[in-house]
């Protein structure tokens, strides 16, 4: 088993729930700062958060703005995986996503989750 720890954060809430949208980014940034690999998986309304420009509109009280946290996670090397059917149903194309976000399907999420130290769903 690899020595490196990995956490998967599944994000299912979008801009309508700013606190639930923000907390997984806080956790992901803290994990990355703690030398833990991070995969963020976006499903359902969560995909809106990696729709370019949307993060600029999300800020939960007492938390940093989501755009800042998204930038931190990207800078620290977090992987952003986005549910294919979820973006398709919302009319979001790969060209509409923030740089570095990758559209994937269920099997990729399964691979990431089964190989992780732990997974959390928000």
């Amino acid at each position: 088993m690899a020595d490196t720890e990995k956490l998967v954060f599944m994000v299912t809430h979008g801009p309508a729930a700013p606190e639930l949208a923000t907390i997984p980014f806080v956790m992901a940034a803290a994990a990355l700062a703690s030398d833990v690999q991070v995969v963020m998986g976006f499903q359902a309304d969560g995909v809106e958060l990696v729709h370019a420009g949307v993060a600029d509109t999300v800020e939960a009280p007492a938390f940093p703005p989501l755009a800042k946290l998204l930038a931190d996670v990207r800078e620290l090397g977090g992987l952003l995986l986005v549910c294919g059917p979820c973006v398709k149903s919302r009319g979001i194309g790969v060209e509409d996503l923030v740089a570095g976000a990758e559209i994937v399907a269920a099997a990729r999420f399964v691979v990431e989750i089964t190989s992780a130290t732990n997974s959390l769903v928000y």
Partner: protein
Amino acid sequence: MTATLVDLETIAPAKVIDARGAACPGPLLEAKKGMSTVAVGAVIEILSTDPITKTDIAAWSAKVGHEFLGSLAADGYDRVFVIRRK
């Protein structure tokens, strides 16, 4: 070993990171960045108005292998001290 209050008062940090006004996880991320700029064995000092920062930095230090020295209360903020150990 835990440094005493007197020890902390006399420490001359290699870097002072002013994270006052930043919300969690801002001070932690600033500490992470700042730590990479000092030599192993050097001390960084983090200034934070978030009272949770001192316990968060202590947990982070234990997780990643640095040495948390403690904290001092200042005028409306905390001064948090960590030695880079790796």
